[in-house]
């Protein structure tokens, strides 16, 4: 349904271009959930925004294609893209607090995309928006309230309702549970999972929290410094990680069993994306790096469909 091939998104900056997303390839089937993980600044949000071409003005898609139902979104005309956006692919933005207009009632905000994408009347759109409010588990009586009258978790529900307004096939969720407390986080995860089943949605979940991916996604893709390093189904990625970075990330997660100690971290810090290393970008921090790692890593596909970009596997 969605196939991203060799996507490259660069930011213009002083002294060259920042290769935030560099040659990333992944795919997603109908009703599937893909988790996109990596540490801050690894390009996961940029990759997701590139799919919808919602990039800031200093960022450009310089190569690759984003195929959605056979059409390349990266080369689509602006006018056509505007019709596809939200109707076929929608997004739940990072930080629900800022993505809601503080001076408009939530029902008006949810109804806005419906009004923009269909010829329905204001009353019909409002009624549809009220149904969406109920769908995400908010009392209909609160539909006419303003964003500041809601808690963080409820605002996130409103954002999800808004993303579903035009019944899209694919929803991108950018850090939907970050900054929420554990209980609310679980509720939102459950809601997303339920909706996904009910509406046969495909989702791309962007997060730095591997546990969220393990709990809600079928497939996982791990990014490091603008590159995709590993991509397979969740059980394989977490059960048998092949890339040393993935293994490091999983080890960095606290284990509730065993002795109380700080989880292992990966020494060093991510490379400067203005001048990334020639070869494998993880090599300077990699515990098993060898001489061949100064050359760009190969694209290996092992065990059928387990993608890993590493010389050593």
């Amino acid at each position, binding site marked *: 349904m969605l196939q991203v091939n060799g996507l490259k998104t660069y930011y213009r900056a002083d002294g060259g271009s920042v290769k935030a997303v560099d040659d990333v390839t992944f795919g997603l089937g109908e009703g599937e959930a893909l988790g996109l993980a990596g540490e801050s600044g690894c390009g996961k949000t940029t990759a997701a925004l590139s799919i919808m071409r919602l990039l800031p003005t200093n960022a450009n898609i310089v190569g690759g294609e984003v195929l959605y139902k056979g059409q390349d979104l990266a080369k689509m005309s602006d006018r056509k893209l505007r019709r596809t956006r939200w109707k076929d692919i929608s997004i739940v933005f990072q930080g629900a607090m800022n*993505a809601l*207009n*503080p001076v*408009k009632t939530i029902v008006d*905000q949810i109804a806005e*995309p419906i009004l*923009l*994408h269909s010829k329905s009347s204001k009353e019909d759109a409002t009624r549809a928006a009220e149904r969406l409010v109920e769908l995400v588990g908010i009392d209909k009586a609160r539909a006419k309230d303003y964003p500041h009258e809601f808690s963080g978790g409820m605002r996130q529900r409103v954002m999800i309702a808004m993303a579903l307004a035009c019944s899209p096939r694919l929803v991108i969720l950018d850090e939907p549970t970050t900054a929420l407390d554990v209980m609310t986080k679980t509720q939102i995860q459950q809601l997303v999972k339920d909706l996904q089943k009910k509406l046969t949605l495909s989702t791309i979940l962007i997060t730095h929290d591997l546990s969220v991916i393990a709990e809600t996604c079928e497939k996982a893709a791990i990014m490091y410094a603008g590159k995709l390093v590993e991509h397979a189904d969740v059980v394989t990625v977490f059960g048998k990680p092949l890339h040393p970075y993935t293994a490091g990330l999983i080890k960095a997660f606290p284990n509730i069993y065993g002795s109380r100690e700080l989880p292992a971290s990966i020494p060093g810090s991510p490379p400067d994306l203005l001048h990334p290393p020639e070869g494998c970008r993880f090599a300077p921090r990699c515990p098993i790096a060898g001489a061949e790692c100064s050359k760009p890593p190969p694209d290996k596909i092992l065990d059928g469909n387990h993608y890993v970009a590493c010389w050593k596997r």
Partner: protein
Amino acid sequence: MREALHLSWRRFSGFWDIYSANRKGVLGLILVVFFFVVAGSATAISPFDPRAIDPNRTWLPPNSMNWFGTDWFGHDLFSQMIVGTQVSIIVGVFATLISIVVGTGIGLFAGYYAKSLGEFFERVIDFFLVIPYLPLMIVLVAVFEAMETPIPILWVIIFVIGITGWSGTARIIRSQVLTVKERQFVERARAAGAGDFRIMAKHILPNVFPLVFANAVLTVAGAVLAEVTLDFLGLGDVTTISWGMMLHFALSNSAVYRGAWWWLLPPGIAIILLVMGFTMIGYSIEEISNPRLRGRKA
């Protein structure tokens, strides 16, 4: 419908609760409402025809018949004061309307298209900001009067005050738009398919509106003063009755020399009170919409 009414009433009373706690704001509101009521019922409450002349009753100090005394022509000054309120209110409100519409529109465009047209708009705003606008107003009014347009001079004055007074508003709105348009809900609206005009009208304008409103109230004060100034300088219509014209005639008939304080003080004090009323409302709205300025109860 009833539900909606109830809701808006709830919101209004919520605002009123905060507003009424602001002593300055309440005092300002009382002053402004008082002058609006006087202007609205002027013909009904003025004891005499303000244009009527009694040659036997000139230069009279305040007395039981003429509460504010009479002038050199024998006009009743109390009646003139009451009827003169109308001009100040009309000019204040309509000139402000022009200023605010122009200023908000230009501020919105200048802020929203900061990268492309911004520079141009900014220079236009700067140009109007640095023009000494009293001479500009004088020239404009003189030109319009020389053109002998069929438009009444009062409306010429309204237009001139409106068109010279928008630059401050534009600058404030522009800077606010610059911050609001970077907020994520603007990006979200664009992602959802909203165009530039929809984003400006439905998302950015409502967010800068409290500022527009607070600024409008302050602009009224400036407009009232500008009108008085033009009248005082003799650029107004000598046949209208206004506070500025009263001062103008008082000066040209050497009221100061004659010691006729009753001809000078009432219009002067009324102008101060009206301008002060609007200014106090403006500042308290600003305080309320910006909670950092809101006085906290200990």
